[in-house]
């Protein structure tokens, strides 16, 4: 450990860190201690070229860059001196020398570090009217990213991202000096499963995603913390919402899960939240009111129970831990076997994407459910949390399906009840490493639907089962889950926070 002083306040930090890294670990960076920076990124190698993070260190005559200066015990660092401020003003002035002042038509405005730092640390007026260096305006670097070469400040975060994280290395800085230009290598384009992260880390409006640019000004967006539901990683996200509509997902930092990244597929999965939704409750093909479909499901369960019929549960790896806990209790009440579930798989990688193309298979396993693709044996009633597992339901007499999305196979269910997506309710997923993460609603559904757990509770009540007379409450359910299942101890929603908690094994 090293004791360092930053602006007269003493801190204890790990040895071997750079000053910026140490500040970042302390949670101080741009959050108490301002050391503006462009090229440095907590999850990329140090470049040391933007020179904005210069600080004064006692005993060293020249200013030093905080990103590449290792902390030493007893180091005294100053970030607010006249010299430091002069140096920052100099860097800002030089960066703005060739950067177009086109903020009014730039999509980065509002979340642009050049704009922000120019206000906070820069000079108000340009001291020259020399023409700016011309460069190419908006052109495609690949299928996902548009590049405005004039706006690029050559911090090379994107270059390092492609070399170090996606390991595809499509980008480089070509030419030298004032002529330096970011480009893709000849004959290649920026096309990899993580390409859109470069737009997040681009501090300026040079790299923007085709998907989001010019859709909405960022200051109209609320960033709601949530979790991606496309694979077993569960990348932490901010959902950018405005007027009950999602405009984008951007990754939210969680060093235990996704660092600061997410894959392009997950990023674009927000579109699925509104596409092909299951919107109408149905009983034997006929649209009904929600209550009537719930009543029909309740009746089917009660009848089966009274007649000693067999009830089976099919869990969904897309449902929350709380939903699955409700299913488990319901099956217990009915004296049925634990549910099974089916996992769809795709090709994962060794970066973020996992083979399991669903967010909560680990949660289902932790609740005692098992994975199966086998057709079910003869049953009277199946309680199915969608999506419908292909070919497993042939020998079931009454299929009660609770589903978020409409797929052709839904037509085989006798009773269909629309369910909320994870964007529309609160709950938690357990990722492949046993990390339990909370998601919160950021959309209000435009038709009647309820979370899986809520619908199951309603059906149980309609079936007049004992112990099911209270209305569903996710907070209470999650506390009950934490109390009833040892693996989930301490993992109730009110204790998960923004970074999640580990499942107890």
């Amino acid at each position: 450990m090293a004791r360092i002083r930053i602006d007269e306040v003493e801190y204890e930090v790990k040895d071997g860190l750079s000053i910026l890294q140490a500040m970042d670990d302390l949670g101080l960076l741009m959050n108490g201690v301002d050391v503006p920076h462009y090229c440095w990124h907590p999850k990329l190698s140090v470049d040391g070229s933007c020179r904005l993070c210069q600080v004064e260190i006692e005993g060293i005559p020249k200013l030093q860059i905080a990103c590449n200066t290792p902390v030493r015990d007893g180091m005294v660092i100053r970030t607010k001196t006249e010299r430091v401020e002069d140096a920052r003003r100099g860097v800002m002035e030089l960066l703005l020398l060739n950067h177009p002042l086109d903020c009014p038509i730039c999509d980065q405005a509002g979340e642009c570090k050049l704009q922000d730092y120019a206000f906070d640390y820069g000079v108000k007026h340009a001291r020259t009217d020399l023409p700016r260096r011309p460069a190419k305006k908006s052109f495609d670097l690949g299928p996902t990213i548009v590049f405005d070469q004039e706006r690029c400040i050559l911090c090379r975060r994107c270059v390092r991202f492609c070399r170090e994280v996606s390991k595809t290395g499509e980008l480089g800085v070509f030419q030298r000096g004032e002529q330096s230009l970011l480009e893709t290598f000849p004959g290649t384009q920026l096309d990899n499963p993580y390409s859109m992260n470069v737009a997040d880390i681009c501090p300026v409006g040079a790299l923007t995603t085709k998907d989001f640019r010019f859709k909405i000004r960022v200051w109209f967006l609320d960033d709601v913390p949530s979790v991606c539901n496309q694979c077993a990683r569960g990348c932490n996200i901010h959902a950018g919402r405005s007027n009950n509509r999602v405009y984008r997902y951007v990754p939210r930092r969680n060093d235990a899960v996704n660092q600061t990244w997410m894959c392009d597929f997950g990023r674009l999965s927000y579109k699925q939240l509104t596409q092909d939704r299951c919107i109408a409750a149905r009983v034997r093909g006929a649209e009904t009111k929600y209550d009537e479909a719930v009543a029909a499901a309740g009746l089917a369960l009660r009848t089966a129970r009274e007649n000693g019929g067999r009830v089976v549960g099919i869990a969904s790896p897309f449902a929350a831990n709380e939903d699955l806990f409700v299913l488990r209790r319901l099956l217990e009440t009915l004296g049925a076997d634990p549910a099974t579930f089916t996992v769809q798989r795709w090709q994962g990688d060794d970066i973020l994407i996992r083979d399991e193309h669903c967010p909560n298979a680990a949660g289902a396993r932790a609740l005692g459910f098992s994975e199966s693709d086998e057709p079910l044996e003869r049953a009277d009633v199946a309680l199915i949390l969608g999506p419908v597992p292909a070919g497993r339901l042939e020998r079931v007499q009454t299929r009660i399906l609770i589903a978020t999305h409409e797929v052709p196979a839904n037509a085989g269910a006798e009773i269909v009840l629309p369910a909320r997506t994870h964007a529309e309710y609160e709950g938690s997923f357990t990722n492949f490493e046993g990390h339990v993460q909370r998601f919160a609603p950021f959309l209000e559904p435009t038709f009647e639907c309820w979370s899986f757990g809520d619908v199951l509770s309603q059906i149980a009540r309609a079936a007049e089962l004992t112990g099911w007379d209270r209305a569903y409450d996710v907070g209470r359910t999650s506390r009950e889950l934490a109390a009833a299942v040892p693996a989930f101890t301490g993992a109730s929603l009110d204790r998960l926070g923004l970074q999640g908690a580990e499942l107890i094994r």
Partner: protein
Amino acid sequence: MLIQPFTTHYLSEHYGDDAYRTLAGYESRGGFKGLRAALQREPEEVIELVKSSGLRGRGGAGFNTGLKWSFMPKGDERTKVLVCNGDESEPGSFKDRLIMERGAFQILEGLLIAAWATGSQKSFISIRGVYKYPIECVRAAVNEMYARGYLGRDIFGEPGFHHDVVVHSGAGAYICGEETGLLESLEGKKGQPRKKPPFPAQHGAFGLPTTVNNIETFAHVPFILSRGVDWFRGFGTDKSPGTTLFGVSGHVERPGLFELPLGTPLGAIIEQAGGVRGGRALKAVIPGGMSMPVLTPSDLDVPMAEEFLSERGTHLGTGGVMVMDDTTCMVRAACVVSYFFRDESCGQCTQCREGTGWIHKLCQRIEAGRGRPGDLTLLENVPGMMEGQTICAFADAAAWPIKGLLRHFRHEFEQHIHDQCCPFPESFEL
């Protein structure tokens, strides 16, 4: 072809002698005495000896060579590497070229002494790509050394003393002469200086402990070993011992190389070069290659050694003396200098990438008769924004000459702006 400097001392004594370019000829003229003397000593002793000789690096920064060698880690299992910097890209500097052509064995002997002292097993001699003939000469010398068993394994009768030399043709950029820019270039990457830490002694070429020295630096080393520290200190000044090859260029009667002791007065060097051409008056002298601030006729008395030049606000650099007579327009000089640095900046650091371009545009505008009163304030400020704030010293090298020109010739810049034209019609063409 330039074969011999106009004045010689120990270093270039035999440069006119073709036999000196063969291994046998080199050895019969005292070659490898220095190395053999070094092998009689412990490596640490050799480092101490070179340190006490006061030999300063001849590549521009003038750092104590022995001290640099002592930074190489001891007890490190990794292969240690020496890099000989033959990039010689400083405008006004052309001394290393002659050493490579006429004294290649001196370089190799110096390298082997350094290898013994630092425990290095491998050397790279990186020579700027356009130096086709010097590359040929050094390659030939290396081949002859291998054929004679002077390179390779267990050389000079010392079991365990292995050394291999690779001659590398540089890809060509000013910045590839910067210590770590050269290492990047040597590794096949874009020539861009590395941030420090880590320093080359810990993490240099290919991640191995590395020491980089200039061609001329290595060439001096054998003499220190063979003739002794006291003899070496007989040349030059107390803080800058030895001789150096001053390269005099520009408006002189007899441009060329002059081996003279460090501390020789600037005026005497220009005298040796036949004085200012056509008997014209001297206006300005760049003392150490283009990145060094100018001196004026009042500085002709300055002894050409770092400790005296730094008192006058400039540096010895590579000893490339560039003389300008009274026809020279100093704003045009600033245009040339700023063009060069704008063109050669690697473009990593903000200040250097943007500042070099800004300075050049301002100089051009003033020279073209479109300067504005505020431009001089900018020309003073922008170099200050660059200096001392970047990964390598390139930004300093780009800033200093402009600051120097403004310090001594501000009135010329003012005149350009006032008259809205260049008042020196006879000056060199841009």
